[in-house]
């Protein structure tokens, strides 16, 4: 499906194929609109930043995109297919991966097992063969264990592979979350505040990693409060406030947008808190 994309220099085209699009998407909680009439386009291979003050509906949007919550109105279209209201596991199988805001991991498993569990969808052999432990299934399992190590090495967690997830430092837990999401081999990765609570050094490491992830052919939709980082890494930025899109464009355009600045100033500058 071709959509016009305003002033996108990087794509070099006026019309590109969108990977994910939402059309007049709305989600209400008891009369209160968490998202209202949202149109959003995500192009392939871009890193799209989603910013906005607390309560702007970013996390709700992720929950709707990933199937945790059903929208009240509107459509979600992924790779040309209508995925509105599908169950979360179905959407995951179609190729939308998600890394969570809070450290949602398998806390009592090792780092390795965390990522290993993430490979659930990527077995070619069925559960029956795996249950019988046939040679083919075991070979595939070895193969997958190798791929787990590849991901851990790629993300720089290989050394702590035998540690329990709950014993990891906070920053590493966040990266592990991304590792698990990568294990599902998604086309589109939803990242919920991966930089939350990190120092500048860790931040730049993660930003490098995200660039590397994109180079592997994975589109990233990023929610982040760290505006500097978003400006640095994102190809495009969408600004939400009260569930509505108030601005969309290149990082520097957004930086100068008066409405955006107002929205942020009006929101007490409190950007690190926990969004409901």
């Amino acid at each position, binding site marked *: 499906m071709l959509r016009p994309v305003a002033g996108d220099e990087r794509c070099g085209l006026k019309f590109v194929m969108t990977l994910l699009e939402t059309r007049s998407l709305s989600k209400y909680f008891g009369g209160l609109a968490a998202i209202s009439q949202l149109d959003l386009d995500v192009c392939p291979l871009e890193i799209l930043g989603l910013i906005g003050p607390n309560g702007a509906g970013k996390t709700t949007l992720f929950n709707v995109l990933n199937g945790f919550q059903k929208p009240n109105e509107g459509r979600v279209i992924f790779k040309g297919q209508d995925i509105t209201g599908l169950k979360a596991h179905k959407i*995951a199988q179609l190729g939308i991966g998600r890394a969570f805001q809070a450290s949602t991991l*398998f806390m009592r498993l090792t780092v390795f097992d965390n990522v290993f569990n993430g490979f659930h969808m990527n*077995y070619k052999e069925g559960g029956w063969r795996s*249950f019988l432990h046939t040679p083919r299934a075991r070979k595939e399992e070895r193969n997958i264990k190798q791929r787990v190590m590849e991901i851990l090495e790629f993300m720089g967690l290989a050394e702590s592979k035998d540690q329990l997830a709950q014993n990891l430092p906070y920053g590493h837990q966040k990266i592990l979350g991304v590792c698990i999401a990568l294990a599902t081999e998604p086309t589109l990765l939803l990242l919920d505040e991966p930089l939350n609570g990190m120092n500048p050094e860790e931040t730049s490491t993660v930003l490098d990693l995200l660039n590397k992830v994109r180079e592997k052919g994975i589109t990233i939709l990023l929610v982040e409060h760290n505006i500097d980082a978003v400006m640095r890494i994102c190809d495009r930025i969408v600004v939400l406030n009260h569930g509505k899109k108030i601005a969309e464009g290149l990082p520097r355009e957004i930086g100068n947008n008066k409405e955006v600045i107002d929205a942020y100033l009006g929101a007490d500058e409190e950007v690190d808190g926990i969004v409901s």
Partner: protein
Amino acid sequence: MKEVTVFILFGILILLLPLILKSPYQMHLIIMLCINIILAMSFAMLFSTGLITIGAAAFWAVGAYASTLFVMNLNISFWLALPLASVTTGVIALVFGSIIVRTPGVAFVVQTMVINMIVVQALGQIDFLGGWGGILGIPRPNPIGPIKFVSKTHSYYLILFLLLLTIVLFYALYSSRIGRAWRSIRLNPRLAQTLGINLFRYRLLAFIIASVSAGWAGSFYAHYFGTIEPGTFSVFKSIYIQIYSILGGLNFYIMGPIVGAFIMTLMPEFLRVGKEIEPILTGGILVLLVIFLPGGILSIPERISFFPKMLQDASSSSRG
């Protein structure tokens, strides 16, 4: 290699148990223990997907009654009735499971409990199923060659075979991708969904497999015990089954039920000298075990390593 030696020695011990235990009464307890282990493992399997059932005894009952009815009404061999009863249990579990597996948490606990009550009521009310008095004179398993299944020893080897089959089957499941999916669901259902795991399907699968294993335990029970009556399969049996698993250690899906059932089956017999205060002792020990060993008996090794540390920092540490 030390573990392998221990394992082999243990295996020999189990195989030669009838030679060591001379008293048929002790063999009876061991046979009942094996049945209880299978039931507790079926509880543990559902727990491995994050579901807590208080209805395991219901599927045990279905297996027992199905097998009995097949053998006594259709005159088929026990060896055919055993798998047939297991399949019947599986079908009934599919029906109930597809209704209740969608609601995890406390709701599931209450629902399984009520299903247990419904099954017991049905068994008692329907005369065709024997009514409240149950069914008497259920034949022993048909003889295979010289093995007649009259003696406790033969029954022991049969239930041992079923138990080992269950253990191997469950172990294979837990170590396969299915088991990993279950573990993901139990540890974090939200995250598991984003990994593409269909919670409903995997939980239903666990529900059916757990019920089927309870079903063959039931089939064996009916033919070993010779009589069945609805009261045996009441909710309180299900609660006991749950306790077996908790006592052994919930994080040990196979060893936990074995250890827990071992204690809870043999302890009341051991305390029989207490006559009417036996349940008070059993209940008290249960409460103490739960409080002081919340990780189950199998967590003792972890706990023991605490003791030296405890003595060390007895003066320094003040963290509440």
